[in-house]
């Protein structure tokens, strides 16, 4: 089997990983912010409901969550995963993987947001209040930028973990890169396994550079 053929197959598989990565970030980043508001709510039923939810999601394996999303709707409730969303065709397996990843990562992101928001000194809110700003103005104009600066390092960590976690989708038979690389072992080829690692290394290398760049962008101030 030629290097080119393997590269083509692996690239195709890595495409699936990239889809999971991109779609998860797209939905989990805003959803995580909503969840973090819930877990900081002064309305205690909402607060405890959200915190219990986050505890369950963070306290169980992502692999288990993939199985649950894959099998529970169909087997327990007879619900079939939609295979077209917004005019885009998605296989039911991919759909399940996306839902599980989004929920899982939103829970982790929510805790990062919460840590960031709660680390802003109360004096910043009070300064906004005495200057006659509304709650939303204080959040968006005063607090948010400071939160973003503080959460970039833990976010970078989590996003890089996500790149590698995308391989877990193979447990519900999404044909991502590791699934395909492993298939080559059937014809006696080991090196595609190592080669697949290069894809992850490259992607994570680019992300590391990107996060370093963003961190430097925020270096112009302290606090």
């Amino acid at each position, binding site marked *: 089997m030629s290097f080119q053929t393997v590269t083509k197959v692996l690239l195709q598989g890595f495409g699936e990983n990239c889809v999971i990565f991109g779609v998860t970030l797209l939905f989990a980043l805003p959803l995580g912010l909503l969840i973090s508001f819930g877990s900081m709510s002064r309305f205690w039923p909402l607060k405890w409901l959200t915190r219990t939810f986050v505890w369950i999601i963070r306290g169980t394996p992502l692999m288990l969550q993939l199985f649950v999303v894959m099998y529970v709707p169909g087997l327990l409730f007879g619900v079939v995963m939609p295979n077209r969303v917004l005019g885009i065709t998605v296989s039911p397996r991919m759909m399940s993987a996306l839902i599980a990843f989004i929920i899982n990562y939103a829970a982790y992101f929510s805790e990062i947001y919460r840590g960031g928001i709660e680390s802003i000194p109360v004096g910043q809110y009070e300064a906004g209040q005495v200057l006659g700003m*509304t709650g939303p103005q204080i959040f968006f104009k005063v607090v948010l930028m400071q939160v973003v600066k503080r959460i970039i390092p833990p976010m970078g960590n989590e996003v890089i973990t996500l790149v590698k976690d995308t391989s877990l989708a193979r447990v519900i038979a999404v044909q991502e890169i590791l699934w395909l690389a492993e298939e080559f072992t059937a014809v006696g080829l080991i090196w595609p396994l190592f080669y697949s690692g290069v894809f992850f290394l490259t992607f994570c290398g680019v992300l590391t550079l990107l996060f370093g760049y963003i961190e430097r962008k925020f270096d112009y*101030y302290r*606090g």
Partner: protein
Amino acid sequence: MSILEVRDVRKSFGDTEVLKGVGFTMEKGEVLAIIGSSGSGKTTLLRCLNFLETPDAGRILVNGEMLFDAADMCARSEAELRKKRLHFGLVFQSFNLFPQYNVLRNVTLAMELLSRESPDFKKNRKEICQEVENRALALIERVGLSDKTHAYPCQLSGGQQQRVAIARALALSPEILCFDEPTSALDPELTGEVLKVIRNLKSSDSTMIVVTHEMEFARNVADKVIFMADGIIEEEGTAQEVFDNPKSERTRAFFSNYTEQ
């Protein structure tokens, strides 16, 4: 009519009663210094005036208008509160500048957000923003920081940061400007520049309340001095009366502790 009238304000945190019925009046253009040892309720009183704390009892009137009445629960919506806050300005002990914005933006931000609410903002956006900026530049010049207009708070000394905070508080032209121990977080050699700025603000139309430990400053600048102890006003009068002829035993004890240091 008094510009500010505070009647019997009380505030407890848990079981600790911090303000045990505080009342005083102020005339327009007056400078009031509030002195007293730590824990006497000075800061809590200022925070109540700025609605950062809600008093448990009492009333606050500005220009005869009832701004706060503990007996009237309905007037406490967030929108109402915002309008009421604009009568007051507050300079914090720890500055609380917005670190991500430069000096100019720190001063313009609140003005700009407020002017966006005016109905003709969209039409005259450019002129309004220019006006806001000019006003901010004038204020920055007034506190002597024209050369730092584009610096960030982390590049400034504590004294400079506090002067920016004063310009920021002045931006919305509050009727009553409050200072909460404005020099307590500063190195001794930096207190002078901040006190000088505050002293220069004294004019017929700016009313100020200064909570301070700087006795010399209080004596020279204040028209009226209040000495607080244990959540009540122990003594009140002109600077001469309170500093030179204190009537209360506790006031005398407080001053003698000060001179010994």
